């Protein structure tokens, strides 16, 4: 469903807002799409990683001699081959600190989690590489390990890193962040109702289908080519350069088709290892992770331990909100603190806010970004407490959100002062939707209870660096190149925008993702920035090209370029010359390009700004089997301000995908460790992501309220939809059972225990 609540000049749009055939569709459904593991080269050999069998151990020695002596082995790497970034000086690439990345791709002083790379081998085939890994002799001194947050912050906890200090003592708390507004103590003093609750969530994996993979060829001239699947070929180039010492200018990173990333492919694992193996062996080296390795050693996102306190007046006005969020970073610093700290209370206009985050290291794989990193953790706690406040006040759950909604000019605790705020629209869309009004049969059968819940969410969205190049081919068609891997349909959206702006048939536009040598720097695909940013640079490139086309026509007609208009894919004489000459089409101008001044094309590179935040409000119905403890989602409606849906199918897909990932987070997904600190469910069988039959059709309510700071009105849409589901489902389970659950996932044993405890 599509609700346009603000007028954008959309009536005349021929391509923007339509469901054109996706440019990558045919390749994907016929199996032709070339993902990272599909690349192969003459002389190519295979790399494999040896991983730590311990959750925490000092590495005393590594003897690779037997592995190197095995016939077929061509190269071995260990941490000494990776550039070391000393612990006392931070070197940042975006939000990643190379001190931690160099220790994440290869264990240095210590192995910090079960699965931490300790060495890597390249050999003539995978079997020999695996056999060689088994011949590497590593002497470990096993150390006490710690997995859970509460254990890691205890005074007697094993310390992962002596150099990390909190309050002047070695600690596993690796960072803190505070967002503050007013004076919460004074705020709570004014409240009629105050509710404080503690919540726990487990780490969850991004669950992309395509495992990390790459091929790296380091040639005799010292130049390297990387084929890999990532959320940013420029990140791959820069990070590999930093970790190997090969200059960026000597590395070409070619983005493969990507089979999902959800944030996790904004960092690298294999590329530096493969590059060094290739350099040592003189052969192209391919590395492909198994699912087991993906689950053990990449991602996931943080688990959390949070306390949220909200105070409100009798009329429902929220006067104060306080949050303390402990989140896991994994084995090295760098967790998404700004997600819970900044987003938890951001949808609301609250005078007194104190939001404090603590990042905690423990013996798990280092976390990676996951869709709205950290924001679902904060929203889970805040939106559940808000539900309890509404209940206590006897207020409607949506009404209390509407009453406290942020407004233009509201200052958020994280620092921003909002311009346009579209939160109220999402609440009203849910209020007015048939789902909210439909009666709920609370006891359809004996032993079955149903409930309904709502929750809202906020995500910052982002702009940042993007580059585009738009070239007119000799036969008068259009090739657009951008620098972002397409994980969410950016090629389809860009094709729609380009066809619209040039006034030509969509089929004449091709969109491709350039490698690092063929397009200007473009930042990561992440933070819901790419369609926003690349539509901006493509629009400006198209405007430049149209300017060139008008100049060419003016030259041919010998009139002033100002007196030429571009309409419907052709140049027309205008003003006093209107009708004097027959129009010149793109094809005709392309055919005359060389005699009239040369090839036609233009590019634009920008650090884009104006990506306003995204808001979402969700309503969900659940059904609980009270004898087995199984929770099923029956119906789900997700309202979100999407700015302008350039390609509605993709926007719907983003909303539906975010919700489904949220459902898994709420009900069934979790990392399980055994007593030795080994991951016990490293695969899709026991790491339970929802399957198709677990989820109903998610109904997206796309509210098209154009972002005034974007030429097409685009707003990021990919993150906001994963923010509300955790709380919406928890609130619905409460509505069904009358028992509140403060820990995720709400798995069947937990539901039965909770019901027992409640009597």
């Amino acid at each position, binding site marked *: 469903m599509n609700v346009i609540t603000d007028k954008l000049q959309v009536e005349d749009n021929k391509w923007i807002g339509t469901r054109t055939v996706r440019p990558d569709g045919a390749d994907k459904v016929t199996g032709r799409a070339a993902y990272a593991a599909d690349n192969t080269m003459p002389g190519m050999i295979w790399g494999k990683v040896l991983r730590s069998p311990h959750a925490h151990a000092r590495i005393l020695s590594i003897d690779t001699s037997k592995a190197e002596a095995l016939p077929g082995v061509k190269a071995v790497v260990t941490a000494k081959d990776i550039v070391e970034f000393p612990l006392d000086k931070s070197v940042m690439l975006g939000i990643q600190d190379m001190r931690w990345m160099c220790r994440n791709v290869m264990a240095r002083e210590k192995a910090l989690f079960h699965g931490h790379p300790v060495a890597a081998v390249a050999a003539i085939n995978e*079997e020999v590489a695996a056999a060689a890994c088994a011949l590497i002799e590593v002497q470990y001194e096993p150390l006490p390990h710690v997995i859970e947050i509460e254990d890691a912050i205890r005074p007697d906890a094993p310390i992962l890193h002596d150099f990390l200090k909190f309050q002047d003592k070695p600690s596993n708390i690796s960072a803190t962040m505070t967002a503050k507004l007013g004076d919460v103590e004074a705020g709570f003093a004014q409240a009629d109702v105050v509710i404080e609750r503690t919540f726990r969530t487990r780490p969850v994996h991004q669950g992309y289908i395509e495992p990390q993979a790459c091929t790296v060829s380091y040639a005799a001239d010292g130049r390297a080519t990387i084929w890999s699947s990532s959320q940013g070929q420029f990140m791959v180039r820069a990070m590999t350069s930093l970790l190997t010492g090969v200059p960026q200018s000597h590395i070409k990173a070619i983005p493969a088709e990507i089979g999902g990333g959800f944030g996790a492919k904004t960092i690298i694992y294999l590329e530096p290892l493969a590059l060094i193996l290739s350099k040592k062996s003189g052969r192209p080296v391919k590395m492909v992770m198994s699912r087991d390795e993906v689950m053990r050693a990449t991602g996931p996102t943080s688990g959390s331990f949070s306390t949220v306190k909200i105070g409100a007046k009798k009329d429902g006005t929220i006067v104060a909100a306080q949050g303390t969020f402990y989140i896991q970073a994994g084995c090295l610093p760098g967790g998404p603190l700004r997600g819970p700290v900044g987003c938890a209370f951001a949808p609301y206009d609250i005078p007194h806010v104190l939001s404090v985050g603590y990042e905690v290291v423990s013996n798990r794989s280092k976390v990676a970004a996951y869709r709205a990193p950290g924001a679902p953790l904060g929203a889970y706690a805040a939106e559940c407490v808000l539900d309890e406040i509404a209940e206590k006040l006897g207020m409607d759950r949506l009404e209390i959100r509407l009453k406290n909604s942020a407004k233009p000019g509201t200052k958020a605790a994280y620092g921003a002062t909002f311009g346009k705020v579209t939160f109220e629209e999402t609440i009203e869309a849910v209020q007015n939707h048939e789902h909210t009004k439909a009666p709920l049969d609370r006891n359809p059968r004996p032993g079955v209870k149903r409930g309904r819940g709502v929750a809202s969410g906020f995500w910052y969205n982002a702009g940042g660096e993007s580059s585009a190049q738009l070239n007119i081919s000799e036969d008068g068609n259009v090739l657009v190149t951008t620098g972002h891997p397409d994980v969410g349909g950016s090629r389809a959206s860009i094709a729609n925008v380009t066809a619209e702006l040039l006034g030509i048939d969509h089929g004449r536009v091709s969109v491709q993702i350039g490698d690092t040598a063929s397009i200007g720097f473009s930042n990561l695909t992440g933070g819901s920035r790419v369609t926003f940013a690349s539509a901006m640079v493509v629009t400006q490139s198209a405007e430049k090209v149209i300017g060139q086309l008008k100049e060419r026509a003016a030259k041919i007609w010998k009139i002033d370029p100002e007196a030429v208009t571009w309409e419907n894919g052709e140049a027309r004489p205008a003003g006093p010359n209107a009708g004097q000459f027959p129009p010149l089409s793109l094809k005709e101008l392309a055919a005359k390009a060389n005699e009239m001044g040369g090839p036609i094309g233009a590019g634009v590179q920008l650090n884009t700004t104006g990506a306003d935040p995204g808001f979402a409000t969700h309503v969900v119905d659940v059904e609980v089997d009270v004898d087995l403890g199984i929770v099923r989602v029956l119906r789900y409606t997700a309202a979100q301000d999407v700015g302008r849906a350039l390609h509605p199918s993709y926007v719907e897909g983003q909303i539906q995908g975010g919700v489904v990932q949220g459902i898994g987070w709420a009900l*069934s997904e979790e990392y*399980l460790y055994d007593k030795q600190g080994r991951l016990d469910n490293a695969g899709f069988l*026991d790491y*339970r992501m929802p399957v198709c039959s*677990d989820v109903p059709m998610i109904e997206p309510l796309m509210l098209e309220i154009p972002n005034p700071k974007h030429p097409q009105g685009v707003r990021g849409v990919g993150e906001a939809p994963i923010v509300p589901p955790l709380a919406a489902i928890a609130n619905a389970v409460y509505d069904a059972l009358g028992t509140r659950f403060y820990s995720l996932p709400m798995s*069947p*044993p937990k539901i*039965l225990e909770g019901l027992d405890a409640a009597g």
Partner: protein
Amino acid sequence: MTDVRYLAPRTLEEAVSAFAAAQGAARILAGGTDLLVQMRNGILKPGVIVDIKKIAEMTEIADLPDGGFRIGAAVSGAAMAEHPRFGKAWPGVLEAVNLIGSKQVQGRCSPGGNLCHGSPAADSVPAMVAAGAVVTLQGPQGRREIPVEQVPAGPGRTTLAPGEILVSFTLTARPAGAGDAYLRMIPRTEMDIAVVGCGVNLTMQGGIVTAARVALGAVAPTVRLVEDAGKALLGTRLEDAALEAAAAACRAACKPIDDKRGTIAYRTRVAGVLLKRTAAVAAQRAQGN
């Protein structure tokens, strides 16, 4: 690298002699949906693979003169579903076999593989045990028949003698008033391994249970025939008290482990819940017949 010899004999005798000759280095291949997974994970590295799908007796469903059925050990789940009469007589066995995996897996997976893989959570096994299936085995020592519940020996282990192959399952003709059912608890709706599985087979006359067999999966090292649960139902009209007694017998039969798929407390409790639900479905089927 290790070589694997692949054999696809056309007779049972050839299969048995090739299997026995390899002396433990060989593995039988039916659908391969367990075997190939184990080989890819590096858990198994057989030197010889004996594919039994070319042997007629192992891949057919035979109607027996008395109205019963003999199901070849390597018949696929999909072939069982397509059989015109089998599912009408044994809907519980069929639904258990058809719960295995997905559409793709159904095209391959067999009840013989499900049993011989030796998983305590194998879905078709409790249904077969409740149904009172008898299996035919053939080995270097010849043929023998044993009740299906005597095959599992523990996780990943069976009582089959060296060189012995499971040939078929025999299910008797159904008397009037008979019905069976299988239900499992999985956290998701599909593509999951049973946390508890329950098979119930009832015969009812005038609303009274005249024969009852109950089996549980995933609650002990092997699938269990719960005789006390059957007894608790016998002679009753499946009143609440009878069902509660049978549920209690099921709980008492549980010797589960705490693992990533379920806790001891949860599995034990769910065994009782599933007994009641499965018995209700079986009774409905029995009384419809």
